[in-house]
């Protein structure tokens, strides 16, 4: 009826409605610069994870280990930041340590992603199971290294990433927007991006078309890992501490946002624009809930219900457009 962009149009309407309702209910607290800045600095953490989730979903898989990768990389970076910076630190020395910490996080996250991709592509393990296993692996490593304790107090300069501002815009938001733009271009304009879409749509057809399924899958999970690594840097910088287990609520939220943003969990379709709108909707609701002082348990309940509601609505819309029958053939 509305064509290929029906999902995006529906999302836009929902986004407009949600923003209007929340603004209407709480004009004084919501429509302030401080609130927008606060929202803008919270979005990147789960936003990057949502992009990671979307990328893996496009290939028909899922990455349940993104938060564990975040935890592990965060722990390693935190250790580097606290152990290698002495009290007599020079400016150059600190800068070097910070660069090392960031580098370590990125490299480790890509390695974790590679392991994920390797298990999925080379051993043929279904992504659900593979990432379920690696999730335990990475989180377990983080717990072993820290023995469950937290790590605090990072160098001042490092905190700029999480808490600093460029003009009025919080730094993490700038990073996030940059990543989102790169991801959008990547998915629609590069060979690898298009291969991912095709693989997710029909892996057998893509294989016979000459696409190296294994290679694409491995690189998909490496990208997912990379995004998780970037997210971890922002996360530990914003909170100025790190402990294993931090951010576990983000897993459900990332999946929620990916699905809300129109990504098809069985693969083949995903749009950064839709994802961005989904992120905005979620963050606006989150802020609204915070201003209304909702209990974190109630929020947990709401996110769960929302995920289910979104899936049901997607099903209804797809059914209306006559695609449900075909969708029912794929195994969950």
């Amino acid at each position, binding site marked *: 009826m509305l064509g290929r962009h029906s999902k995006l149009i529906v999302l836009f309407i929902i986004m407009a409605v949600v923003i209007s309702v929340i603004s209407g209910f709480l004009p004084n607290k919501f429509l302030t610069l401080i609130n927008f800045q606060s929202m803008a600095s919270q979005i990147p953490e789960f936003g990057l994870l949502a992009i990671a989730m979307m990328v893996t979903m496009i290939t028909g898989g*899922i990455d349940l280990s993104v938060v564990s990768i975040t935890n592990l990389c965060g722990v390693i970076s935190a250790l580097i930041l606290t152990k290698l910076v002495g009290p007599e630190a020079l400016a150059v020395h600190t800068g070097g340590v910070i660069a090392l910490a960031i580098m370590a996080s990125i490299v480790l996250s890509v390695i974790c992603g590679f392991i994920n991709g390797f*298990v999925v592509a*080379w*051993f*043929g*393990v*279904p992504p*659900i*199971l*593979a990432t*379920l*296993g*690696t*999730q*335990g*692996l*990475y*989180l*377990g*490593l983080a*717990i*072993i290294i820290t*023995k*469950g304790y937290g790590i605090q107090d990072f160098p001042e300069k490092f905190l700029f990433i999480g808490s600093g501002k460029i003009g009025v815009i919080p730094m993490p938001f700038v990073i996030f927007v940059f990543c989102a733009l790169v991801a959008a271009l990547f998915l629609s304009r590069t060979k690898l991006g298009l291969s991912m879409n095709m693989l997710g749509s029909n892996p*057998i057809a893509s*294989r016979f078309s000459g696409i190296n399924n294994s290679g694409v899958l491995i690189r998909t999970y490496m990208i997912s890992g990379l995004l998780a690594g970037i997210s971890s840097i922002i996360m530990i910088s914003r909170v100025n501490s790190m402990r294993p287990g931090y951010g576990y609520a983000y897993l*459900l939220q990332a*999946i*929620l946002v990916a*699905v809300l943003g129109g990504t098809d*969990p*069985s693969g083949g379709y995903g749009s950064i624009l839709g994802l961005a709108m989904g992120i905005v909707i979620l963050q606006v609701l989150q802020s609204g809930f915070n201003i209304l002082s909702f*209990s974190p*348990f*109630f*929020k*947990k*309940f*709401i*996110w*769960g*219900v929302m*995920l*289910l509601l979104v*899936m*049901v609505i997607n*099903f209804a819309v797809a059914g209306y457009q006559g695609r*449900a029958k075909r*969708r*029912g*053939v794929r*195994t*969950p």
Partner: protein
Amino acid sequence: MDRPVPGTLQRTLKRVFRRNESYLFLIVIVFSAVITLINPTFLTLENFFDLTKSSAGMAILAMGVLFVLLSGGIDVSFTAIAIAGQYISVNLLMVSGVDNIGFAFLISCSLGIAMGAVNAFLISLFRLPTLITTLGTLSAFHGAILYFVGTKAVNTGFLPNCFKVFGLKNILVLARPDGTNYGLSVFVLFILGVVVLTWVILRFTILGRGIYAIGGNREAAERSGFNIIGVQFFIYCFVGFLAGIMGVMHVSTIRYSNPNYIVGDELAVIAAVVLGGARITGGSGTILGTLLGVAMINILKKNLIMIGLSSYWEQFFIGLIIIVGVSFTYYQNKVRSSQRLIFIRE
């Protein structure tokens, strides 16, 4: 063709070794042997009884998860159902003053079936992907319990007596050399009951056939006349029922009711079932394998300390076991499929 025909013994051995359970059984034996060498108290009857009691909960949940996996789905919400059943039955018993363990089971299991029905409703009627749906219901159920019922933990002192009595009940009591007793917990009857029930359903009923059929090929099952919605309702309600049983057993064991417990242990149960050879894509899996998987995970959990590793290594090891265990199976499958030019890997 001049190859000698393999004898019956060779053929049987070959068939046995092709099965996943055989490898797992060997691994469990080897692992137990290694642990016994380090700590001789492992291979005692008392330790065996203790192991049975502590793995009872997981074994029961694993049977439910096996059903779900066989049907080609995956359920991560059973922990929320278990703790919901537990917390509500404890509180209801406290509020009503009734002190009957049967009543507790009734409440917990009914609630479990109801919550399982919610899962079933969403999955069967709307054809939603099972992982994401149950992730949603996990969050919704747990959030609902914590928000609408409360977060106050119930201490041993306030816990109704029936739970404590039930937890300590033994069906077989033996004496140690120093005069004190130890026993085989009544939980073992529950394990046996659930295992037999599962076995009967899977082996002797059309319902069981339906579960395997849906997991094997849903379209084909539908066209063969299986009532997909009915079977799926049964599966998820059964999971809820078992989760309800586990919840009551859990509180009876630890004598402390905290609505934040159990949730988070989904990975371990799924690991056990998958380790036992159940395919995540459905249609394949055995009870024996699942039980071996549960045994393996529990032996590992309890004895990590004995090998010299602290409990921090637990998560890591479970994750590692899953990866290594399933990689082996799925790789074999992949190689075999490509040799036969099969590209749709089920």
